């Protein structure tokens, strides 16, 4: 089973305030810690599980800056075999259709059975890149996959629908699967793996290196323009309980009891 796993380096904004830069089209990410996108982490684990269940070869593919090498090495420490990192500032990265073209360019010409990637990125959240990539590669796909069963020349994918209902589909290989979080339990990289990963090949490539025309994936080719980012006003009618922690807890307890809520 020859696999590619496409991963993205994203900021963790789960408990942090996000600020828009003066340019109006980017956010100030200087205070954020970056790591592998959540769903992509599950995609890495799934690729390693598939490899361990039979045999396989996994290439990590990512578009991003040098700092993301840490993330790529971690994926290789878990069992991925080699990596390609595309670094090029001419990519219209706000448009998943352009990103898909770049990923396809890096894969085209190489044999593969499966491409796995997260079903959604935690930063821009389009849920589009993997499915667009399948079309660029001219192969089958299934999105939001919560279980993978590899069969002979085929794959059974359990797609997670609204309300937790699963839709099971059968695809002929090769195929792209976009992986949903919770599909497995991502492992921690073993020390031995971390050492081994340092010796694995991590190729850094520009668009020219992978044979992709920069104009075809740049802002001129993208048919959507990111005009403005802004912080939406949280129209809260909530009563904000103020004070020191203990005071706040006391006040809330009183409200709940007096209001007959508990």
């Amino acid at each position, binding site marked *: 089973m020859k696999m590619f796993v496409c991963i993205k380096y994203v900021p963790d904004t789960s408990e942090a305030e996000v600020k828009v830069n003066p340019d109006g089209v980017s956010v100030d990410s200087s205070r954020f810690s970056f790591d592998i996108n959540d769903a992509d982490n599950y995609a890495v684990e799934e690729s390693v599980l598939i490899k361990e269940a039979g045999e396989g070869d996994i290439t990590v593919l990512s578009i991003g800056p040098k700092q993301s090498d840490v993330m790529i090495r971690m994926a290789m420490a878990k069992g991925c075999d080699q990596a390609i990192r595309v670094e090029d500032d001419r990519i219209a990265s706000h448009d998943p259709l352009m990103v898909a073209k770049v990923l396809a360019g890096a894969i085209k010409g190489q044999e593969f059975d499966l491409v796995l990637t997260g079903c959604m990125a*935690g930063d821009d*959240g389009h849920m589009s890149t993997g499915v667009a990539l399948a079309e660029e590669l001219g192969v089958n796909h299934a*999105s939001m996959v919560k279980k993978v069963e590899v069969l002979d020349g085929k794959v059974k994918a*359990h797609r997670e629908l609204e309300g937790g209902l699963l839709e099971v589909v059968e*695809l002929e290989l090769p195929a792209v699967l976009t992986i949903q*979080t919770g599909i497995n339990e991502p492992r921690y990289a073993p020390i031995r793996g971390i050492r081994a990963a340092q010796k694995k090949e991590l190729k850094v490539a520009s668009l020219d290196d992978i044979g992709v025309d920069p104009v075809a994936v740049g802002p001129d080719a993208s048919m959507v*323009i990111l005009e403005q980012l802004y912080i*939406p006003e949280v129209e809260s009618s909530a*009563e904000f309980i103020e004070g020191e922690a203990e005071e706040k807890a006391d006040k809330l307890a009183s409200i709940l009891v007096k209001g007959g*809520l508990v």
Partner: protein
Amino acid sequence: MGDILVLAEHRQGALRDVSFEMMAIAPALAADMGGEVKVLLIGSGLDEMAKKMAAFGSKVLLIDDPLFENFNAKKYQKVLSALIDDLKPALLLTGHTSQGVDFMPSLAVEKGLPLVAEAISLEYKDNTLKATRQLYSGKVNATVAFKPSDTYLVTLREGVVEPPDAADGGNVENIDSPLKEEIPDRSFVEYIEAEVGDVDITQSDILVAVGRGLKEDKNLPVIEELAKAIKADIAGSRAATDAGWIPHDRQVGTSGKAVKPKLYIAMGISGAFQHVAGMKGAKTVVAINKDPEAPIFAVADYAIVDDMFKIVPKLTEKLKELKG
């Protein structure tokens, strides 16, 4: 030309809410774009659904064919690809759902058309279609403008508008499927219903829900203590169930359960749209989160900006004291 083709979504014999919601924004937008709304329904045995959609006042194009007994992204893509050539809609609008996300990006690539995914609003002004969508789990809004294209593709987030009232003028027209035969390389196998657990959180009176802010499962006893003190059931956001801290059948949100307790206490939950969609039916919402800008506060009745671990033990203690 400026017609909007709305793809009505259905599953297991019922129309999905997003189908109605799209009809709340499509007519006015079509008027701005100088066209009208056409609704497309693809499936098998959908006469009743077609009538229901026609009640919103637009023409319904019905492809009723056993070939479409179950959803198949690849079949949908082939049908839509042919209909885009045929009908030349200015906009194809679908839900940003497990269906929409499974074929709209590949359709966009196939046809060389632009796509905006998960729009929360749309506006047509000065000959330009603009969409608003969200980034960073709803912490940032983005305005995106389409460059001129014969057809625009947009998926609309569920639950951003209320379904509209009925309107006159709708009718149903049966059309032939442009796709005539099965597709061998992707096939539907079956549906598997969600697992049922020991507690049905859709029936709970009080829920205490945790999210990513729980950090690790060894912090769970603090929450269990609170739940015990007020006879609440414990639920979780997607982050909490994915991490294995909370069982999957207790996940609140679009891919989990929609709950409607009298009291919902959200702790360490930022309140991404997918979560809020599952708990907005709660009567009273208390939110505790470190981030003052957390979207969860928009739906809260009582809010505390603080570390949940500083608040919850004290809260439990005080509640025990007051309740005797």
